[in-house]
């Protein structure tokens, strides 16, 4: 069987799996690559959303990277190169302090991130997590690279059938998962008369300084139990006073 053909078949199977049970993609990655955890995030421009995570610990680590805007996932996407961190040591701590801290408390000792590349297009990242320190084997590296290629084409082909402006079946999760965060950023944008983009930055800063996740902060904002302060760090006047 030619490489072309097996690749085509792999993509078709991955696509059909993703359509009905996106989460299975991560389970499959963990199994075929023989790693402890995996997450797949689709990215475009400054936007990112996970389409699946293999477990709750991975979810927390992927969320943290989103909250602080740094980590192996973002580095792999920005550079288009795989990121290898076989030891989350002092050097890695200097690079991604919060990420390494949470990884340690989650018993994650090594992390590897592969950009989802196909014919020059970069559509996201496959991140692999290990409980023990150490490099991936040569076979694991080759397989991860091949799998990242299959996933890239899978993501694009899931999007091919979708009407313009809507996400394809199996990809909707990428936005649904963080829907509350986006909604909250819209609310904060109105409250503070800033852009939604800046509102998200404020939410990130608040989450970071209060040791919360952005999702938790967003949830409080949407429930109207939290209002972020404006630039002058005083509580924003309530709506009634404005009117």
């Amino acid at each position, binding site marked *: 069987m030619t490489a072309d053909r097996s690749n085509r078949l792999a993509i078709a199977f991955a696509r059909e799996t993703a359509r009905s049970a996106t989460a299975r993609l991560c389970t499959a990655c963990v199994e075929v690559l023989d790693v402890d955890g995996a997450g797949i995030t689709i990215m475009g421009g400054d936007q990112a959303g996970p389409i699946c995570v293999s477990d709750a610990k991975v979810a927390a680590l992927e969320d943290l990277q989103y909250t602080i805007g740094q980590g192996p996932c973002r580095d792999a996407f920005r550079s288009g190169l795989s990121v290898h961190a076989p030891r989350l040591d002092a050097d890695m701590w200097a690079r991604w302090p919060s990420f390494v801290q949470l990884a340690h408390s989650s018993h994650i000792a090594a992390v590897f991130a592969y950009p989802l590349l196909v014919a020059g297009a970069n559509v996201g990242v496959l991140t692999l997590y290990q409980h023990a320190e150490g490099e991936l084997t040569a076979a694991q590296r080759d397989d991860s690279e091949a799998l990242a290629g299959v996933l890239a084409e899978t993501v694009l082909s899931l999007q091919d059938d979708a009407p313009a*402006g809507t996400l394809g079946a199996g990809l909707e999760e990428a*936005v649904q998962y963080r829907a509350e965060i986006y909604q909250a950023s819209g609310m904060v*944008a109105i409250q503070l008369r800033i852009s939604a983009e800046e509102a998200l930055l404020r939410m990130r800063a608040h989450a970071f300084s209060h040791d919360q996740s952005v999702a938790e902060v967003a949830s409080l904002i949407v429930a109207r139990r939290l209002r972020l302060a404006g630039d002058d760090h005083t509580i924003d006047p309530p*709506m009634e006073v404005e009117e």
Partner: protein
Amino acid sequence: MSDEALAHAATRQTLTATTFVEIVDTLVSDFDVIEVLTVLTSRCVELLDSAAAGILLADEEGHLRVIGASTEQVQLLELFQIQNDQGPCLDCYHTGVVVAQADLRATSPWPEFAAESVAAGFPSVCAVPLRLKSVILGCLNLFMSEAVELSEADLALAQALADVASIAMIQDQASRDAAIREGHLQHALTSRIAIEQAKGMIAERGRVDMNEAFARLRAFARNNNRGLTEVAQALVDGSLTVDLVAPRRSSPPPPRP
């Protein structure tokens, strides 16, 4: 080998290497198919014992089209093949193998084409397929001013040049397609996020929950004959004020001008 022959061989070797570098270069820099094919035709004429060269490429429906030619005469001969549905290039495209006829003045499978070509000063022709694996993209036509057969070495070189050009074209198409698809994904991601952000804006201004906010967003888009995504984007980028979609609670409706 005489000094002259040695010098000729050395020049040819350099020119061959330069041509490959030139074509490969287009793979990494801004790619222009026409430019690559123009380089291909002119270098074929310089490197091989051919007087002129032309290229036909198949379009999406499989119809051959003239893409480039080293001379105006050749362009006409290429067109002649398509219009009369006969000639070495068509046979080459359909079979995927080299088609050559050293002397068109002898019996030819393409009598009308042979007459035209001989009249134009090209009594000998050769067609080399532009292909990648089983995909045939078109063919490279070489025209000779004398009734000669191209040497094995010349043919191998012509095929190698054609192969590099084919890879360049296939790669270019693949990355063009991928870039378009990546753009669609990015647009979809941004649009979907904008809808959630817009819901948050409307919910805050109108003091309603997210379901009601979405209902208002949809109603506004429908009433104004605009797309949902477009309205959401406009709210997020500030080109549409949220007050128009969600009047502030307890404030009177805006006066009509």
